[in-house]
């Protein structure tokens, strides 16, 4: 019976006594209201989204992942989602409602849900949670994220080859490790194929703001930039590039409607690859709370089709890099690499550890811009 199992499970030692009593009392009332489920019923899979499923970017890609789960497992799963759930005050309630609705696993698809996931997971030890892009885990909470910097290595290579002015631009979102990894990876690989390349960075301080992203693209082009990489999720920069006859890349989703030019390729999130694997593990009983950080090789990070606007030899070079990364033969952060202040970061042949990357707060040598702190 769910009630007995829930109340009997050991909770985290850090939880104080008052909270413990509170959550046990809450769970008793909660569990009584729930029908107990039999084994042959479908696995209930819940998703919580920060945006609407129609956003054509971040949330859309997660919802594509949900649909991939339905397609893969058919009647063995039943999926539901809550969209437009703001981070902060509403997240905890929405997660609780998903758990109360009998979901066996809940995927929380935005960084800001992190503490809410940990709180709710402690009250529902029988429900499995996975939190996207976070770093807090528990007995029933795993995390999953993409190694987007692997994709930037490929698009950075194309950018370095394609620029005529030797100035490439990057529309960044917020100075957090994921974004800094992307800037560094793109720059390192552009410079590798074009030693004269310079990188300009504009901070949009938003993940999705078409007006601001368009301004950022125009500001970069005014400085002579002719290839733009973006970390922001709207198609506005591509629209500006199209007008100016310059090129860029799709981000988060494939943005194929701007192909073959200005969108010459893309780095997009293919969460379905993870969701199918994760749900499969729950179904066969091998799921564990892990810190999953998947890249091109795992299928989570995908490189969109490289269009005919890119010369065949550049395309072949980029695809060879992609395949080497996917096979694990090459790490995009391989020494010798120095930090922007000139100090040594990685010695010859040394590769960055995941700890290094997950706290990355510096530019590599060669990027002259100031990193906002």
């Amino acid at each position: 019976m769910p009630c007995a199992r829930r109340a009997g499970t050991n909770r985290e030692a850090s939880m104080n006594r008052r909270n413990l009593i509170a959550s046990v009392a809450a769970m008793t009332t909660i569990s009584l209201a729930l029908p107990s489920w039999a084994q042959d019923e479908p696995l209930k899979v819940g998703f919580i989204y920060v945006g609407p499923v129609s956003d054509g970017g971040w949330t859309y890609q997660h919802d594509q992942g949900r649909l991939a789960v339905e397609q893969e497992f058919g009647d063995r799963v039943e999926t539901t989602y809550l969209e437009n759930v703001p981070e902060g005050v509403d997240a905890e309630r929405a997660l609780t409602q998903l758990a109360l609705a009998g979901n066996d696993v809940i995927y929380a698809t935005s960084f800001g849900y992190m503490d809410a996931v940990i709180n709710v997971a402690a009250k529902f030890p029988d429900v499995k949670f996975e939190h996207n892009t976070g770093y807090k885990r528990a007995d029933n909470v795993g995390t999953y994220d993409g190694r987007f910097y692997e994709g930037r290595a490929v698009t950075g290579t194309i950018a370095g080859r394609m620029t005529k002015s030797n100035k490439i631009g990057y529309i960044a979102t917020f100075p957090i490790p994921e974004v800094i990894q992307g800037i560094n990876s793109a720059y390192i690989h552009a410079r590798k194929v074009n030693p004269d390349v310079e990188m300009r960075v504009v901070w949009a301080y938003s993940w999705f703001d078409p007006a601001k992203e368009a301004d950022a693209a125009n500001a970069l082009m005014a400085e002579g930039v002719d290839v733009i990489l973006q970390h922001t999720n709207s198609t506005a920069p591509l629209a500006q590039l199209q007008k100016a006859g310059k090129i860029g890349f799709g981000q988060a989703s494939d943005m194929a409607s701007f192909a073959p030019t200005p969108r010459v390729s893309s780095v997009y999130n293919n969460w379905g690859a993870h969701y199918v694997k994760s749900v499969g593990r729950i179904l066969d009983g091998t799921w564990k709370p892990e810190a999953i950080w998947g890249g091109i090789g795992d299928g989570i990070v995908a490189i969109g089709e490289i269009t005919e606007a890119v010369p065949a030899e550049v395309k072949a070079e980029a695809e060879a890099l992609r395949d080497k990364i996917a096979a694990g033969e090459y790490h995009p952060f391989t020494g010798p690499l120095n930090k922007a202040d000139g100090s040594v970061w990685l010695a010859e042949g040394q590769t960055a550890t995941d700890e290094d990357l997950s706290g990355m707060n510096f530019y590599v040598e060669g990027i002259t811009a100031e990193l906002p702190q």
Partner: protein
Amino acid sequence: MIRLVPRTDTPALLQGSTPVLAVLATMLAGGLLFAIMGYDPVTAIRTIFWDPLFGPAASYSRPQLLVKAAPLILIASGLAVGFRAGIWNIGAEGQYIIGAICGAAVALAAYPAPEMWIFPAMVIAGAAGGWAWGMIPALLRNWFGASEILVSLMLVYVAQRIAAWMAFGPMKNPEGFGMPGSRNLQQYPAAANPELIVGTGAHWGVVAAVLAVLATWFLMSRHIRGFHIRAAGTAPRAARFAGVKPETLVAFCLGLSGALAGMAGLFEVAGPAGQITDKIGVGYGFTAIIVAFLGRLHPLGILLAGLLLALTYIGGELAQLTLNLPGATVQVFQGMLLFFLLGFDLLTRYRITRRIAA
């Protein structure tokens, strides 16, 4: 030709019943909308308005109503005082954000001290922050005649930027791996605003909301300042002759509503929200405007209206979960509610007459 003619006298019954009519009209129009979209309208309306109160998981959702309604009621109580005087604070959202930041600043500066004074000091700092942010439009109006509507609204966007700066800069959790967001105040006992009685949802913000309702009721119906406010709203010239200083009223109303919004922000950031992020403003300051009008700018009405709006939030989530209604349903409902309310209000003050154009 259709003309609107002011009514010479409005029946009290009609005036008092418009919120109820607006709710019923919203249910009807909402049901119609659901039917067009292919959902069963009766089930949808029942899921939104009935299930959170009496449905299978009501033991969880009922306390959540208080959690959701508390900031709305707290903010709307303050706004209503100003609205009665014809002073339009549209920027409670910004005052809420600044209050949250100022309150959290006290906690983060004191971390990890366990002293008892920390939480009360946070409440004072939150109120002071909201008050100060409300005083900017007040002073600009008093000194330069700037519209408090525009200034207070624009300051919301300034406050949002400050919140983003704080979350990525000075208040960033030093143990957060460079990720945005402050420490979680729920995990800092001296600063946390937890549930006071287990299973009720009631935190200090709920207590403050009830006190605010009582205090504004006393102010408006028993205190001379309340009389001045009502006089200034209904007959500004007469009020001036009676010795009411408009400047004082502007400062009082914007300061009061700012302080209450700031406190609401503090209670949220120390409780349900937990941390300062770039998204601490979730729209309570704007929804509270609907609450104030739906409650007829009367403290008791605001209490009920706050609970009703909270019901649409929680019921809307339930409808998403159980019926797969789109997430925008809640916003559509809230928008319709205000639309019908304003519409019915117009009809209580004006008569429609049809006349053939000459």
